[in-house]
């Protein structure tokens, strides 16, 4: 239900595109500006929440601009909206700017690359529940795989603003250098901590990179890299919290690490979503029922997309 006194908490709105910048081979950063009620609703958007974009009315970019391996699938007509989380939200003078970090990999996201400044897009949101910050935490560990970095960048920003005493470190992994969704890392990359990722460094958050092929940073899985790092630190489990987003296989590994080390861990999950606002039941996530052997399905879009790893039964 809408909260009359503060404007609606969510809704279907038109956003104006103010930027759509290519930042890597397949990665882009889309900037959307909201006014009026929409600005008020999105000003409240928390890291890990998401929005559903209607990209069906946008024409494909010229075929030369489409990677050869995507040309065939790009021709599929799209019907449903697509879910995206935010990598930045900022409000100023009654307007709210929301940025989305995305990867062009299919018919909808390819169309998204054709959005230019001044165009309008229909957006439903903000949706779902974001990351929660339990009291008393001193160390925040942000661990992303591939495209999962977006909401963690947003989280790094709000954490440094809301909890300045908390130390935060980001770990980002991908298969190879070109699949890291960041603008070029600036400083020398090593396997050590450093301010190499501008996206995190601007909030004073250091980062560690890993690639499966070792083309940059640690060679191996980000989960192994993270695990090693944890092993070298003496860290009070109850002081720390892990926030993670990435492919489900990676999240399942994160859950195991968190369980072994008894560290709280919240993850942002993905499911195929037909609606995004809790009416269709398509986005089920299998969860444990507290204190019993039973399971139940929760909805990724409404109960999540952020879940505590202790409750999730992973499918990967």
């Amino acid at each position, binding site marked *: 239900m809408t909260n009359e006194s503060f404007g609606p908490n969510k809704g279907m709105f038109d956003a104006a595109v103010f930027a759509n910048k290519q930042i890597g081979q397949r990665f882009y950063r889309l900037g959307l500006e909201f006014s009026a009620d929409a600005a008020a609703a999105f000003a409240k958007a928390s890291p890990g929440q998401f929005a559903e974009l209607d990209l069906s009315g946008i024409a494909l970019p010229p075929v030369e601009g489409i990677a050869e391996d995507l040309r065939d699938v790009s021709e599929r007509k799209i*019907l449903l909206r697509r879910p995206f989380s935010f990598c930045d939200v900022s409000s100023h003078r009654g307007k709210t700017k929301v940025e989305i970090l995305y990867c062009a990999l299919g018919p909808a996201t390819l169309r998204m690359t054709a959005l230019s400044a001044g165009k309008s897009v229909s957006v439903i949101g903000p949706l779902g529940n974001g990351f929660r910050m339990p009291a008393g935490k001193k160390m925040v560990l942000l661990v992303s795989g591939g495209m999962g970095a977006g909401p963690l960048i947003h989280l790094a920003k709000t954490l440094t603003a809301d909890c300045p005493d908390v130390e935060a470190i980001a770990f980002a992994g991908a298969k190879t250098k070109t699949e890291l969704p960041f603008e070029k890392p600036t400083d020398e990359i090593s396997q050590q901590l450093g301010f190499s990722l501008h996206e995190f460094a601007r909030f004073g958050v250091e980062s560690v990179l890993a690639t499966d092929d070792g083309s940059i940073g640690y060679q191996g899985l980000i989960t192994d890299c993270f695990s090693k790092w944890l092993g070298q630190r003496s860290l009070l489990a109850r002081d720390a919290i892990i926030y993670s987003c990435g492919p489900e296989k990676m999240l399942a590994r994160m859950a195991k690490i968190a369980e072994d080390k008894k560290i709280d861990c919240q993850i942002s999950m993905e*499911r195929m979503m037909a609606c995004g606002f809790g*009416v*269709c039941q398509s*986005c089920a996530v299998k969860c444990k029922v507290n204190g019993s052997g039973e399971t139940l*399905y929760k909805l990724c879009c409404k109960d999540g997309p952020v879940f505590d790893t202790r409750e999730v039964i992973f499918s990967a």
Partner: protein
Amino acid sequence: MSELIDVSVEFSRLKLANPVFTASGTCGYADELADFTNVNQLGGFITKSITAKLRQGNDTPRVVETDSGMLNAIGLANIGLDAFIQEKLPIIAKLTVPVFVNVAGETIDDYVAVVQRLATEQAIAGFELNISCPNVAKGGLSFGTDPAQVTEITSAVKQAAGEKVLMVKLSPCVTDISVIARAAVEAGADALSLINTFTAMVIDIETRKPVLANKTGGLSGPVIKPIAVYLVNKVYNEVTKERGIPILGLGGIRTASDAVEFIIAGATAVAVGTANFVEPNCTTKIIEGLKRYCTSHNITNIKELIGSLG
């Protein structure tokens, strides 16, 4: 001008302010939709299927998109009758539009049990009998493809439904839909709704496996609309017209023009399903569009349009 247009319709024993419903399974129990549209502006609301006991539903992926449509294999995931009565009925009771509870089950007794428990609830105008769900192992579609079973289940539920309007929802996955429609009507159905989804499959060409965990799913959305229009017209001509039984037409409706097609084909009212996911307020747009259509075509009463196919 459009205020002078009468878009109300008589749907069995109900008088509806307009002919636009939301379809079962696409609008939950009305609570989530309230953020995007005023449910009370609708002609009627239909709940997600309710079964006697809670159903977890199928594994994921439960949905996949296809050109101009989607497949779903939710598996009738729902909170079950008890939780429905406790948690959702109070929300529904606050609505001013007629509400149909969609009922599903594995056995005839399941259906009767749900309908009996709800038959005395003031908040409910009627029941929609789902004998056409393609995504469950037992019950569902198997009831809806055999005329003898349709007769048996419809008459059993009719008794349990008392004064409430009983609508039977038909599957398009049959050789002759009129045979099924006739069985339902002769066994006491007050109205028919058609169509439910088509059984379909999408294959992942990398893994060479079906995309859906359930392997098959029900196809819905704009892609099924012309078939749905045809089937509504067929049932209208062959079964319901002479008996004065109303049809709720659905399948791929997204615009007012789509709705008009169904009404011309013989539907007294229409329902919108998949389109709500893309545009959760599209029913409001459709209701306005219907009035505009009537105005520009000199129709003062929308009833003139029903079954007016030339």
